C-alpha cells in the first residue's frame, strides 16, 4: 500500500510541525537514505546534538557513522567525541 507523505498543513493541524519532530523525521529519512537535500558534516553533528538533547540515543549512534573524519575542527571534534561517548554510555545503561 502506498503511504503518502503528510503535507506541512496536515502536520500543522495535527500539532506535529514542531522543530523537534521535524528534525526527527529528517534524521529518520536521512538514515533510511531517503533524504534528498545536501548535507554537510556539521549538519550531521547538529543532528547528533539534537539526538543527545532529546535522548534519542539509537538515532545518535546511527548518525555517528556519517561524519567524515577531520571534517570538523578540533573543538567540535572534541565535543562530538564527548557526545558519542554519552550515547554509548546511555545505550549500555538502557540495555
Amino acid at each position, binding site marked *: 500500500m502506498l503511504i503518502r507523505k503528510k503535507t506541512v498543513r496536515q502536520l*500543522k493541524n495535527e500539532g506535529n510541525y514542531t522543530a523537534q519532530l*521535524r528534525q526527527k523525521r529528517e534524521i529518520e529519512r536521512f538514515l533510511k537514505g531517503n533524504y534528498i*537535500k*545536501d548535507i554537510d558534516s556539521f549538519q550531521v553533528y*547538529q543532528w547528533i546534538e539534537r539526538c543527545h538533547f532529546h535522548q534519542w540515543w539509537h538515532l545518535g549512534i546511527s548518525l555517528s557513522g556519517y561524519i567524515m573524519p577531520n571534517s570538523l*575542527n578540533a573543538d567540535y571534534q572534541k565535543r562530538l567525541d564527548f557526545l558519542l561517548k554519552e550515547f554509548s554510555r546511555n545505550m549500555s545503561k538502557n540495555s
Partner: protein
Amino acid sequence: MDAESQKRKIRRFINGAIKEGIDAFCIYQWIERCHFEKWWEMGAALGAHLQPNSLNNDYEKRMEFILAECRRNHQQEKKAQDKTMGEMIGDLDGVKRVEAVQLLKKLGIDLDTKLKDIENVIQGRSSRRTSNTDLTGKSVRAIIVHGQTYPARTHKEAYLKVIQFVFQHHPQDKDRILNLQGRTRKYFSRNPHDLTKYRERIPDSDIYAELNENANTLYRRGKEVLQLYKMDHESFKIMTD
C-alpha cells in the same frame, strides 16, 4: 542542509520572515553553525532571540560560551572595519607610510575613509551606500562622486560638497545652476533673500543654496545638479553609518 542554505534560513529568521516551527534548540544549533562558520554578526544577532533557561544546564552553559565568543569576535571585526585609513597606515614605519599616503592620494581616498567603506566600494555593495534607500535619520560619513571620496558629516554638507565638486570641474559655468528651480521656489540664487533662512553660500562662489529640505531631497537634488552639468550622477553616493 548545507552551510549556505542554513545561512539563508538564519537570515530569514533574523529578518522576521520565519516565525513558526523554531524552538530554542534550533536557535542554539544556528548559533553553533554561526560559530563554526565564523558568522560572528549573525551569531550575536541570534542571541537576542533565545529565551533564558529554555535549554538544560549543560546546553545553556555551552550556548553562553559560544555566544560570548561570537559577540567578542563580532566586536573585534567591527572595530577593525571602523578603522580609518589614517589609523591603519599610522602603524606603518616611515617610508612605507609615505608610500601608502601617496597611493591613497592617487586613488582619491581620504585618510578619514573607513576600511569598511573601501571594502564596500571594492565589492560593489550598495547596502551601506545609498541608492534607493531612505536617508532620513542616517548619519553621514562621506560622499563618493566620480569614484572620489570626500568626508562629510551632514546631509547639508554632503550636498554642498557635491555642488563644490561640480563647480571645480566647471569653474566658468557656475551660473548654469541657477536654472535649477522648482515651480514656485528657487533652489539657488545670488540674492540670499530669495531663499529661506536655512540657505548657505556655496564655497568658492557667490551663489547661495537652499538647504531647507530633507535628506532624501538634498540627495536627489545633488544628483540633479550633476545631471545638469552632464556629469555622472549615478556615481554620487552617500556613505552612512
